[in-house]
Structures are given as C-alpha cells and as structure tokens.
C-alpha cells in the first residue's frame, strides 16, 4: 500500500499582519512562526495508523512552499512518514489553488498511490480545494470531511461528517483521495528515533519553476481588513479594572 500525504506549512494562528493600503497580497513579518496545518497533522496521523495496521505500507509526504517548509516535511517523517518531497517555491506569494493541485497531481503520477490524504482545508487560505482539485486532475474519486476510513481490498469505506449531527457512509474504489477532518485521532508527537532518521535523510526537492504551469485561473486582487460587523468597545486598564467594567456591563444589561 502506497500513500501520499500532502502537508502545508502555515503561520501560527496568533501571527499579526500588516498590510499596505491597496496591497494585492500580504506577507507575514519576519518574526512570524510557522507550524504544520492542523488538519494536515490529522491526515499524517491517519496515514501512520494505516501503516501500523499494514506494515508494508509506504508513506510519501509532500509539501509545496519556500525553503522553510522543509520543517513540516521533517515533522511528518518524525510522525512516521517514510519519504519526503518538497516542491520549492521562491516566495510565499498567492498561488491559484488549481496550480497547486496541478503540481501535486504531476508528482502523484510519478508513482502509483493507493490513497492520497490532505487536510480538509488550510488554516491560512481556508479554501478546502486542494484535495478535490487534485482528485479530479488524477481522475480518482474524492471524499471530503472524512472522520473515519476503513480499508478493504479494492476500496475504502469512509464516513463524512455533515451538518446536523449526521454522517454519510461512502464507499470509494481505490485509488482514492480523502480530505481529513479533525477529531478522529489526536495527532502524535514525532518520535525521537523517527526525527533522527528524518534529519539524516535527503528530501527530494524540486524547484516549482521547473514544473509545467497550467496557467492561472484566478488572481489575488486586494487584501483588506474585515469591516466590523459589530462595533464593540475594547475595555481598558488593568485586569481587575476590566473585570469590574465587565461586571458593570453585565449587571446593566440584567445578565447577572
């Protein structure tokens, strides 16, 4: 069994962004920290669990990003992925999700994967597109928001989480692509032995500019601060002063 897991390096949720008026795109400042996209951690975890159940499984982990994205590839290998592939982009600019999927599909065709996993969406772009686009480009079936996956000989049974407290049971023929929702299993910490092995191992690196580019289908036009939906007041002063102010507000409104 051969699995490809796609992971993305994203800024930490507390990162702060400055934007120039009229700017097309935003780059996080130099002090920003990065981590693996939370949902991609879940995807790696699901792949590693399959490998634990079927020890002949080989897991390739792929990431597309600038040189710092190497860190998330190493982390995935520390969690149990076998080999790393890094499609190196020069800057952290806006990428059409179709182009990203196109590159992933191009790499996937160099091997024969039974399963491809991605996280349900990235925490930075929040699109939920890469999985379904990649599946379509490879002409393989796709299921998103997967909360459980049971492998059979030629197919995989999944449960998709849908609205209202329901789950959909779907059977997909292999090869298939699944986008993984959080909450199934808590992603494991990388093990020291895996990390040591990962750090010694070369990651297969390809420059994105050497790959065929499909032509953009969308472009970033402008980045903006969201407008306030409610014009809330920011409390000021020490912790105790703010606590007293909040108490006063709640009492004025008869919540207490």
């Amino acid at each position: 069994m051969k699995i490809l897991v796609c992971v993305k390096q994203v800024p930490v949720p507390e990162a702060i962004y400055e934007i120039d008026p009229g700017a097309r795109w935003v780059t996080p400042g130099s002090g920003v920290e990065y981590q693996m996209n939370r949902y991609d951690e879940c995807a790696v975890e699901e792949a590693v669990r399959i490998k634990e159940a079927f020890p002949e499984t080989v897991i390739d982990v792929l990431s597309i990003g600038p040189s710092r994205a190497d860190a998330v590839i190493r982390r995935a290998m520390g969690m149990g992925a076998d080999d790393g592939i890094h499609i190196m982009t020069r800057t952290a600019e806006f990428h059409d999700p179709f182009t990203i999927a196109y590159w992933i599909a191009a790499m996937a065709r160099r091997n024969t994967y039974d399963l491809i996993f991605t996280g349900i969406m990235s925490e930075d772009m929040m699109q939920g597109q890469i999985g379904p686009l990649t599946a379509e480009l490879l002409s393989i079936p796709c299921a998103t928001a997967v909360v459980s996956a049971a492998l059979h000989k030629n197919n995989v049974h999944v449960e998709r989480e849908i609205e209202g407290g329901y789950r959909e049971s779907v059977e997909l023929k292999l090869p298939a692509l699944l986008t993984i929702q959080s909450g199934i299993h808590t992603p494991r910490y990388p093990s020291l032995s895996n990390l040591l092995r990962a750090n010694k191992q070369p990651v297969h690196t390809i420059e994105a500019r050497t790959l065929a580019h499909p032509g953009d289908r969308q472009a970033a036009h402008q980045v903006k601060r969201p407008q306030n939906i409610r014009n809330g007041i920011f409390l000021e002063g020490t912790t105790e002063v703010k606590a007293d102010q909040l108490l006063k507000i709640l009492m004025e409104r008869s919540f207490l």
Partner: protein
Amino acid sequence: MMKCEPHPIVVIVEHDNGKIRPVTYELLTFAANIRQCPAQRIMAVILGDSVEQPAEKIAQATGIPVWAASAKEFKFYNAEVYKHALHLLMAALQPAYVCIANSSCGSDFAPGLAVRLQAACITQVQGIRSTSDGVCFTRAILGGKLHLEVRPLTKTTVLTLQPGMMPPAVESDGLPGEVVLKKIHVPPQSSKTLAINAVRSDDLALADAKAVVSAGRGIGDETNMSLVHQLADCIPHAVVCGSRPVVDLGWLPYNRQVGVTGSTVSPALYVACGISGAEQHVSGMRTSGFIVSINKDPTAAIFHLSDVCIVEDLKTFIPAVISAIKSQKGTPES
C-alpha cells in the same frame, strides 16, 4: 464599460430530500448581486430523486426558471454522481457563474466540477465587489483576520457562498418561472453513498440557552476548562459549549460543539473565551444577542463581531471576573 453578459448565472439548489434549505434563497440574492445587467439570466438547477415539487416551489416563489433533474442515483448526495450530472447540464447552459452553497456537499463537489468546466473555483465567498478589472469575490483568510478579494480569469467561474452572508431572495408576486424536467443517465461511478446516519442528538439545553460561556482553542489546557465552568456557574442560566478544537480534544462532549457541523445557538449573552473567530465557529453563534470576547490576541477575528472586546489572558481574567461577581453578590468564596 462592462458589456452585457449573455451567459447565465446558475444556482444549484441545496435541499434535504426535497426540503429546500434557506441557503438556496441566499444564493439567489448572491446571483442577483453578481449579475452585470438585467438581460443576464438567472436560473436554478436541482438534482434529486423526486424534485418536481421543490422545483415548482422555487419557480413560484422567485419567478426564476428551474431545471429539475431526477434520477435514482440522486437519492443520496454523492460527489462523483453530482459532478457527472452537473457537468452535463452546465455544458448545455454555458454559464458565466455556477453558484453553490458552501455546505458539506457543495464544498465536496464544487472544485472538481470547476475542473470539468475549465472554470476557476472560488470558495467560501462572503461578498462581491465590482471593480474596473471585473467582479471580485471576497473571502476570509488567516482565521478571518484578513479578507482577500479574488478575481476569476476564466469564462466560467464556480463559486461557493458562505451561508448566512446574503439576505434571502425576496418572494416574487410575478409569474412563476418555467420548470423544465431533465432526464439524466448516470453511469456507475467510482464512489457510492451507502447511508446517512445520525450520530448526535441535539442538546436541548444548548438550543434554548439564554446565556452561553464558550471555550475555544485559546483555553490551552484541559485544566483551564474548570475556569469556564466556574464562570458559567456565576451567570444565571448559562450553559458551557465550545468550538471544534475543544471538542476534538475531548474537553467537551460532541453535543456541546457550536459551529458549522455542530449546533447553532442564539442566546441573549455569549461569552467567548479563547475563541479566534474563524467562520467555522462564528457561523454557529453570530446571531447571539450580546457577544463578549476574551482573547489575548488583539488581532483575533472574533473582535470584529463582538460587543465587548477584552484583550486579556483568560487564565488571569476569568478568575478576576468570577471574583468581581462573587464580591458583588456578597457571597463569601468557599
């Protein structure tokens, strides 16, 4: 000057076994807002195993034409089935835009459908703006901290719309739209939906709650959940709930999850503790009466939606509030 676009705008009807979901009417407003001139047609397409009635209902209520495709393969939603059928129908319609709900099924099939139509796909759209470079679609990025306007470069564009962002289309008292029944043959696909199962019953305490104290990922540690419970104990009628990450970690049961795939609540008071404000959670609580948010990140998206914004570490702030409340009540701390 924008020349009038002859290619139609198609809305894909979102329904639950024939029961039309409200987001469908929001999609119609969305379509009307994208339309470049009155001559550009708006129409709806519905797939299902028995869709004549819902199709008539929409055509009557809105006056727009509806294509209704029936097939037994549409009984349960399935991505491969929907992509196949919609590809056939869109090839006949040559739309400028295909407008889909950003629901669990819409987000499942929209990108793949876009590939089949050689279209751009822009998801989780919250707004539209006409610019000199064309129509741009606004979407949230970075946990909702920033908005990005995206411009499609293709003849056809597939869009998914966030529910709750547009008002529903106004009922038309004009003539009902034409309903056209379409027969689609769906060959066997590489994926098959077997069943739909309920796994969670709604927590009635949450649905009727007058006050909610909610925990997000910023809680940090399971031990801090006791602060949230203690705060809820100080507020009359308050119920504790949380965003997805907190439930994923097992710190609250599944029936206390508020958000897209969890519950929607609308209490008079909502106190958000360590919640970032990304749409997946906010969609479940945005109609709350009075929203108080506590977060140590001053740029958290939740502050755009709050009535009272408190930039504090909840580990020190919540105890301070509890202390203030208890002093006020004159209750000695036990």
